[in-house]
C-alpha cells in the first residue's frame, strides 16, 4: 500500500497546488503535489533550486502570505484539514505539534532575547509550564541538543553563539513541546560539513527516539542517503518520483532522478573520460512549463508521446513515478 493511501498518515498532502500573482499575471509554481509522512518516518523532499520544495513546505502550515500566494488542494495533519483553516488553529498547531528548522537559524531566533528565554517562552505559551519549570526545562533541552554548559549557555544571546550552536537552539525550540512532526528546510546548508553531520545526527536521533515524523527539505542527495527512510523527488513544481531510500538509490525509475543521482560527484563512477555525468539544459521557468512532460527537453529517453499529453503518475506499492518510459528495475528484471 502506498504511503498516501495508508489509513492515517500523520501528514497527508494531496493535490496541493500553489500559484503566485506576479506583475506579469499568475504563475503556477507547484502542481498537484501528493505525498505523505507517517509517524516515526523521515521523508526527504528533494529537488533543485526553484523546484518548489520550500513553498510546498511553507504552505503546509499556512506560512505563505496569501496574496500573493494562492494555495489549493488538501493538507491533512493528523486528520485535520489545514488548507483554509483559521489562523488561530494553524498557530496552535505550529507552536505545539509541528516544529520548524530553517536554513538560517538567525531568522528563527529573536536577537533581543536570551536563547533560554526563547525556549521557555515556547514552553509557557504552548506547553502550559510556569516560568520556573519552563526555565528549567529549557536548560534540559539545550543539554539534549548537545550544547555544553547548558545552564550557562541558556543566558547567551543568539549572536554570541556559533552557527552550529544556534541551529541546535532552533532545534531545541522545535522539539520543546514534543511535536509530532518536524519540518526542516535545508537545516544544514549554511553549516560546515563536520557540524552538518552533528546536526543531522541530532535531528535523526530525536526523530527516532520520539517517533516523530520528519520532513527534510534538501537538495543534498548525500544527506538524503544517510538520514531518511523515504524520498519524494520534485522537478519543476511536480512530484516526479517517490520511493523508499534504498530502492531509489538502487534503481531510480524517473530519468530525472537517474540523472540527478549520476551527477553527484562520487555517487557513481565518472564517465570513461573522467568527466561527470551531467544533465543538459536547464529547468524551464514556471511560466513556460509545458502541459506534457516538463523534463522532456532534457530527457535522454524522450519520445513523441512525452510531448503530447500530461504525464500521469504510475503507482506500484511504495513507489510512484511520473514518466511514460521509466527505467525498469534492473535487479528485479535480472531475476536476482
Amino acid at each position, binding site marked *: 500500500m502506498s504511503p498516501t493511501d495508508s489509513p492515517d498518515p500523520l501528514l497527508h498532502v494531496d493535490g496541493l497546488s500553489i500559484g503566485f500573482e506576479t506583475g506579469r499575471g499568475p504563475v503556477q509554481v507547484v502542481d498537484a503535489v501528493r505525498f505523505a509522512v507517517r509517524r516515526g518516518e523521515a521523508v526527504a523532499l528533494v529537488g533543485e533550486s526553484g523546484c518548489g520544495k520550500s513553498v510546498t513546505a511553507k504552505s503546509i502550515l499556512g506560512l505563505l502570505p496569501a496574496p500573493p500566494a494562492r494555495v489549493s488542494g488538501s493538507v491533512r495533519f493528523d486528520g485535520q484539514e489545514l488548507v483554509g483553516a483559521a489562523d488561530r488553529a494553524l498557530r496552535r498547531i505550529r507552536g505545539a505539534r509541528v516544529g520548524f528548522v530553517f536554513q538560517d537559524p538567525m531568522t528563527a531566533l529573536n536577537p533581543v532575547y536570551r536563547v533560554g528565554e526563547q525556549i521557555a517562552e515556547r514552553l509557557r505559551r504552548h506547553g502550559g509550564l510556569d516560568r520556573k519549570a519552563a526555565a528549567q526545562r529549557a536548560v534540559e533541552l539545550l543539554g539534549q541538543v548537545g550544547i555544553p554548559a547548558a545552564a550557562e549557555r541558556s543566558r547567551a544571546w543568539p549572536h554570541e553563539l556559533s552557527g552550529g550552536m544556534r541551529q541546535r537552539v532552533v532545534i531545541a525550540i522545535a522539539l520543546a513541546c514534543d511535536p509530532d512532526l518536524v519540518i526542516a528546510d535545508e537545516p544544514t546548508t549554511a553549516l560546515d560539513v563536520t557540524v552538518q553531520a552533528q546536526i543531522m545526527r541530532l535531528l535523526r536521533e530525536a526523530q527516532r527516539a520520539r517517533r516523530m515524523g520528519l520532513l527534510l527539505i534538501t537538495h543534498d542527495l548525500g544527506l538524503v542517503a544517510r538520514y531518511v527512510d523515504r524520498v519524494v523527488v520534485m522537478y519543476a513544481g511536480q512530484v516526479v518520483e517517490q520511493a523508499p531510500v*534504498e530502492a531509489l538509490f538502487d534503481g531510480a525509475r524517473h530519468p530525472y532522478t537517474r540523472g540527478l543521482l549520476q551527477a553527484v560527484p562520487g555517487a557513481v563512477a565518472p564517465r570513461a573520460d573522467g568527466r561527470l555525468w551531467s544533465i543538459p539544459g536547464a529547468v524551464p521557468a514556471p511560466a513556460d512549463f509545458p502541459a506534457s512532460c516538463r523534463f522532456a527537453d532534457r530527457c535522454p529517453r524522450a519520445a513523441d508521446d512525452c510531448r503530447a499529453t500530461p504525464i500521469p503518475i504510475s503507482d506500484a506499492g511504495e513507489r510512484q513515478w511520473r514518466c511514460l518510459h521509466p527505467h525498469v528495475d534492473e535487479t528485479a528484471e535480472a531475476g536476482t
Partner: protein
Amino acid sequence: MTPLLEAEGLKVHYPGPRGAVVRAVDGVDLVLHAGETLGLVGESGCGKSTLGRAMLRLEPPAGGRLAAFGEDIIERSGRKALATLRRRTAMIFQDPHASLDPRMTVGQSIAEPLVVHKVGDRASRARRVAELLERVGLTPDVADRRPHAFSGGQLQRVGIARALALDPDVVVADEPVSALDVSVQAGVVNLLMDLQAERGLAYLFVAHDLKVVELIAHRVAVMYLGRVVELASSAALFGAPKHPYTRALLAAAPTPDPRRRDDPPALAGEPPSPLDPPHGCAFHPRCPLAEDRCRADRPALRADAAGHRVACHLVSLDEPRA
C-alpha cells in the same frame, strides 16, 4: 621547472574587533605548478579563500615571500612582475551574480580584461567574446544581454569566459560550483576540466565539496585555522589521509549511498575562532588523539619520501601504514 606561483611562510592578517588580529593565513608554504589543479579545502573561516586571493596578491601579505612566474611580487622591485601577474592570471568566483557588473552586458564584462590590457581593437574583441561564449557552451548572441537574464549556471559560464579572455596560465577558482545545482554543477566542472586539457591551465581550486575536489584536483591541501595541515596527491589524500582532521573531514561528508547511513559523526565541536587560536596544534580541542605535547607544541608540516606532507605530532612518516 619554476612553479607558476610560490608562497613561503605567507601570512595574511585582518583587523579584528578591539585591536585584535585575525590571522587568516598564518604561515603557508604552497606552490602551484604549470598545468596542474591544486585543490584547497577546509571548513568556513579556515582561510582558504583568503589564501587563494593572496596567491594573486589580491590581499596584502603580512609576512612571508610570494613569487609569480619566478619573480618576487612583494618587494617594490616587483612592479613589473605584478603587471605580468595581472595579465597571466584570473579568478572565478562563487556567486556569478555578485561578480559580474549588472549594468554591463555580459559581452562587455567578458571584453573588459581585453580593454584594460589594451588587447586588440573593437572588432577583434567582439570576435574574441563570441569565440569565448561558444567555448563555454553559450551562443554568441547572448553577448548583448545583462546578467539578470541568465540562470546561475549560465552566468558561471560567463564568469569562466571572462576569466579566459586573456588566455591566462593560472586561474584561481573560489568555490566556482558551490552555488550551482547538482545537474548544472556537473556541466561546469566538466567544462573546467576540458579547458585545462585544452589549454594547459593551472587551477588553484578552492572548495569545501570534497567530492568535486577529489575528481578535479591533482594535489590537495587541507587547511585548518590559517595553516596547511596536510598536502598530498589527490590519490594519497583521499585514499590514505594521515592527519586526524583530514580523516574527520572525509568521514563527515555524506556519501550518496544509503547503506552507509549510520556512520557516526566523526568530529565534535566546531572550528575555533581565528581570533584566538588554540596553543600548540590548533586542532587539539577537537582531536580524538590529542595528548600533552599537542597542547604545547605546534607540529611542523613534514614530508615523507613520496612528498605527502602532514602537520601532526602523532603521524609517523617513515614507517609504512598498518
